[in-house]
């Protein structure tokens, strides 16, 4: 990004024509914007398709939000000067699409948290995948959830049966009422590189040749590691 260009734009002193807007939006680092948006798209897609919650992409979200803000400021600054409504509308659309991705990504995570809140709280590894605010939300959500079940149903049941975590305190030793995501479900995925032969189970009976850009339907659990290292993407 060209620093001189940025400061000049913030002064708002220069008069810009249509070309000026296009130039200055390019100066925003279109390449950088594009790549982060592409990255966000992949992260969003993975999050939507994976049965479990994935690590929160804090720095990516941070970057994308800064870029959105910068673009919005620039569009606003030039909205009064620009004559070309079509161009303006295209830039707005671009910002709106990125905002949609971001919102949808955060929504997908909330819905996973709400589906298995207690499982996530109990599991340190999953808990660490949440952002600080998501953790706060999970705690609050669990609280209202437990209170609601307690006051509506559990308080009305015989004492030994009144736990939200156990079916009955008579027989169950573990918390046997907490739902967990099905990690063995099948997912569609695309290989991002030539990974070669990959074992799908411990015994080595089943393996698959992962070629670049090929599509596969595989069980989620064995390919989790590949997703973590960004060698595959879910679709």
């Amino acid at each position: 990004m060209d620093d001189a260009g940025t400061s000049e734009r913030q002064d708002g002193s220069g008069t810009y024509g249509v070309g000026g807007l296009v130039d200055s939006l390019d100066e925003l680092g279109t390449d950088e914007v594009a790549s982060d948006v592409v990255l966000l798209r992949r992260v969003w897609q993975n999050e939507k398709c994976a049965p479990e919650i994935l690590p929160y992409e804090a720095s990516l979200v941070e970057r994308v939000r800064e870029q959105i803000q910068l673009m919005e400021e620039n569009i606003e600054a030039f909205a009064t000067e620009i004559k070309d409504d079509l161009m303006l509308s295209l830039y707005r659309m671009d910002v709106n699409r990125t905002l949609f991705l971001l919102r949808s990504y955060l929504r997908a995570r909330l819905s996973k948290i709400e589906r298995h809140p207690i499982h996530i709280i109990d599991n340190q590894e999953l808990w660490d995948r949440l952002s600080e605010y998501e953790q706060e939300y999970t705690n609050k959500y669990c609280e209202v959830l437990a209170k609601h079940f307690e006051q509506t149903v559990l308080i009305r049941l015989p004492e030994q049966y009144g736990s939200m975590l156990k079916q009955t305190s008579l027989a169950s030793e573990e918390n046997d009422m907490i739902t967990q995501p099905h990690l063995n479900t099948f997912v569609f995925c695309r290989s991002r590189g030539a990974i070669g032969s990959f074992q799908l189970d411990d015994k080595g009976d089943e393996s698959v040749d992962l070629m670049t850009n090929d599509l596969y339907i595989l069980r989620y659990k064995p390919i989790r590691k590949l997703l973590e290292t960004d060698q595959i993407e879910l679709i």
Partner: protein
Amino acid sequence: MAMFGKKGAELVREAKQTLATEDQFRPFNQDLFEQVVKETDEHYAHLQERMSQIKANESSEAVDPNFVGGCAQHRSVLRNKRCLLAYVNARMSKIKQLRWDLGAVLPDDITANLSSTERTFFQGYSEALSSYMADINLDLTVDATPPKDPYVQIRVIGNLGEVLLDDQETSLLPHSIHFMTRTEAEPLVMQGLLEIYQG
């Protein structure tokens, strides 16, 4: 005693219907709910009776028929617990959706169909969500579908008077038609003050 588990099954069917009816919210079926709770209590009373008889017969060698009976009662209590929770859970997911679709304040006709604990739950859920969205400084309830056009044509339903749109003061008179950005229109559409106008 009624047939084992029949009321519970009815309650689950009710839960399914609650989820299936899209445009309205069914009232909390307190009557059926109470019947299942009562049945559960009866099962439990029978179970305790069996248990005390099992204790009394402990010395005898023969297989105690009370044991089998007790198991059936025990499973019935568990099953009813599942049914009750499933019903409440189904309604809860619907209530959560209301927060996303209608915002933090529910219209009276829906509130009337919620039980008092459900109202409390809605408040709690709404507060948790609102404070999360305030923390991240982003309203997640808008933009539910991918945006096609940044602008939409809308028709004014309620009386809004002068409002600031896009930093310009515009007067939104009832029944007038306007062109505005989707992000500005969506919250007002959710509140029922505007509707999307299709030519």
